[in-house]
């Protein structure tokens, strides 16, 4: 089990920036641009590690240490959800599906607290925006997980994964389609993809960038790295628990095939996201709530269907 645990953890930590790089490269190619190298996120992280770290005057202890704590939280999540190996590994028993959702919220809360602790007005603005949107996103996330637990009568993501990969027809049930749709909408929101684009410095879209506004050097590198990990974790939960739960192996040496399988699954996800990103326009800031309300509606309908219809 040690081999599986280490494979899963190291895969998440070291390969998550690669998927961001591939995504940027493909997107640029579709937009007829040359685009950065697929290893650009690694170059950025290495560059930032060598840079000087500046701590703003008046910032507190949270500002300095939260990036490490957030990295730790995402490390723990990478061991409790089936993001590579479809059977429980070490530390999996530390939390269930809902526990995973709460850990995601904890990491987000820590990052927001750190941003507020920096003493910057821009960071405070980004934080207030995130909080005003997150109440619906968190509600939808928890409702989706409630619904998933109702399908399999357990709150364990591994059981859900195993149930869905062995019962093919369940993947086409109405309940499952609604939950997949709601979770995908949340994935786009949480990773700041168009139509919700939260990256960039224009004032009206400055949400994620607001959190990192005062960070520099090593701390910024760690923050960027945790963002890559978060994207990988959410995307892999979407792929392995909701969208395409098939194709993963658990025994030695077959589990080594999981690496190319996950890679292919991610190519599929990247393709879908790129199609969405290149065909939809960015939503205005105050429309983000409408988008999240729609995701929440889907998740609640899914909850009703899973309880009443099935």
């Amino acid at each position, binding site marked *: 089990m040690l081999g599986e645990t280490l494979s899963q953890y190291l895969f998440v930590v070291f390969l998550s920036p690669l998927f961001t790089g591939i995504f940027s490269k493909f997107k640029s190619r579709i937009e007829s641009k040359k685009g950065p190298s697929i290893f650009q996120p690694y170059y950025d992280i290495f560059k930032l590690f060598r840079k000087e770290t500046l701590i703003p005057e008046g910032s507190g202890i949270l500002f300095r240490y939260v990036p490490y704590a957030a990295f730790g939280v995402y490390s723990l999540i990478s061991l409790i959800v089936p993001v590579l190996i479809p059977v429980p590994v070490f530390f999996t028993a530390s939390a269930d599906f809902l526990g995973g959702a709460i850990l995601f919220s904890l990491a987000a809360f820590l990052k927001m607290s750190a941003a507020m602790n920096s003493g910057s007005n821009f960071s405070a603005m980004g934080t207030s925006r995130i909080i005003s949107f997150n109440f619906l996103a968190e509600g939808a996330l928890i409702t989706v997980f409630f619904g998933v637990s109702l399908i399999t009568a357990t709150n364990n993501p591994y059981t859900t994964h195993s149930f869905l990969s062995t019962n093919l027809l369940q993947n086409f049930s*109405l309940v499952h389609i609604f939950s997949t749709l709601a979770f995908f909408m949340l994935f786009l929101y949480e990773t700041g993809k168009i139509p919700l684009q939260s990256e960039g410095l224009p004032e009206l879209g400055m949400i994620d960038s607001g959190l990192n506004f005062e960070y520099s050097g090593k701390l910024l590198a760690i923050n960027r790295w945790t963002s890559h990990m978060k994207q990988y974790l959410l995307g892999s939960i979407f792929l392995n628990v909701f969208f395409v739960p098939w194709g993963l192996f658990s025994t030695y040496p077959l589990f080594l095939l999981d690496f190319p399988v996950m890679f292919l699954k991610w190519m599929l996800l990247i393709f879908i996201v790129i199609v969405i990103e290149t065909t939809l326009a960015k939503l205005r800031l105050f429309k983000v709530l409408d988008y999240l*309300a*729609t995701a929440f509606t889907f998740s*609640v*309908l899914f909850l009703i269907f899973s309880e*009443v219809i099935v």
Partner: protein
Amino acid sequence: MNALIEVLIYPISSFILISAFYLQAQEFVRSMVIGQMIQSALLGFLSFVIGFAESDYDFFILGVLIVVLRAFLVTYMLERRVPREKIHLHEKKVDVAFTFLVNLILVVTAVFLIYFLIFRSIHLVPDIGSSTIFIFPLTLFFQGLFLIASRKTTFAQIIGYVEEENALVLFAMFLLPIPLIIEASVFLDVLALVVVSSIVVIEKFAHEKMEDLVG
């Protein structure tokens, strides 16, 4: 046959439900009209599916009537009333997040209460199997009501009325034999939706607050 019905009826019914949410969130009058056309067409299609499963010609006639009267005639009459130069005619201040949340509260509360209290003992079309199917017409009905209550434009209110009618027909379609309510609703289609609504829309585009104060 059972499997086909199960596979088709639930998705179509839920698409009807989703179209109701679409109508609720829509600001533009023309999109709402198109939305109700899709909803009615889905309802007509559902009628054909049930008719096919039950080998009952009544459902086919009903399907044709729904498609002709609601999906085409009502849409045509309403579309004609949208002024050509104002194709972007829309209702201001449609707060989607708020509307959806209120809508969900209504849906969840009403459906669970009514379903568990009242509809346990109704006899259904045999192939549908479970009375849980009533969640769709009930939800649609309350959404239609809420659409009327939450909007000021006459267009939106008429579309809310069509939605309620759709809900009644959907409700009645799951029962055997087809009750009188369907014949009544077809009559209402011709009289109220087509004739009256086209006149009302010309006479009064929106209900403003100030009108309440005028004697």
